[in-house]
């Protein structure tokens, strides 16, 4: 019997961090959380009440006046962006055959993802539901009180 040739990819160094294993695990753990976060988001914004026809600045302001929805949307933003970035990283690794193409596509992906996560986080934390000098009929009703 001829011995089977050793695999071309080198074995992992003992003690080295197994990034791909953690990426694989992250997809499953974040996926389960995202099912709850995203389906809850769709239920509240599209199904209950007046659905899409009720969504405007006052609707978003009404939600983000509560820390509950701020935390919900922040978790959803981070988990969905990292889950999607890792998914697209896998797709790029599968289909982009040239080293240079693969490298630059992934760099573009990472820059776009980090920018979007930071922008979304900044918006959630710096949001003012009752901005000064704006027409009152566009603002949530609680801005008029006091």
């Amino acid at each position: 019997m001829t011995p089977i040739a050793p695999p071309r990819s080198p074995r992992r160094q003992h003690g080295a961090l197994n990034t791909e294993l953690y990426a694989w695990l992250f997809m499953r753990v974040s996926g389960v959380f995202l099912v709850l976060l995203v389906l809850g988001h769709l239920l509240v914004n599209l199904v209950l009440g007046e659905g899409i026809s009720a969504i405007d600045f006052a609707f978003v302001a009404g939600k983000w006046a509560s820390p509950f929805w701020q935390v919900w949307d922040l978790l959803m933003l981070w988990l969905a962006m990292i889950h999607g970035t890792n998914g697209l990283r896998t797709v790029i690794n599968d289909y982009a055959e040239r080293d240079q193409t693969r490298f630059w596509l992934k760099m573009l992906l990472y820059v776009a993802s980090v920018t979007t996560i930071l922008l979304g986080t900044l918006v959630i934390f710096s949001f003012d539901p009752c901005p000064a000098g704006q027409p009152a009929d566009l603002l949530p009703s609680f801005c008029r009180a006091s």
Partner: protein
Amino acid sequence: MPNAPAGTIYRGREGMWSWVAHRITGVGIFFFLFAHVLDTALVRVSPEAYNAVIGTYKNPIVGVMEVGLVAAVVFHALNGLRVVLVDFWFQGPRYHRPMFVGVLGLWAALMVPFTVRHLMHVFGG
């Protein structure tokens, strides 16, 4: 020299097609997510700017496209749970085919009422 058989193509069954659909819906949802974070960020510009852009979501053509987006999200969610069960449940690999049938059934059961409800909102029913 023997000829290579012409026109052979790997055609997996439920396993391959669920993987293809998971990949396509995943990439589509991710590109929408970029647009969605940007349009939501307009709440920091002004109420008028946000309301103007969110108005496009209420357009009847875009409203019908939203049904497609939700269909992609619901499929990706249910099939993702199936992938988790295949990977972590000891009976998962054995039942991956019936679970895929279950994913499609549950997907249809959720999408029919959602589509009716959403199109009522879009077309003002």
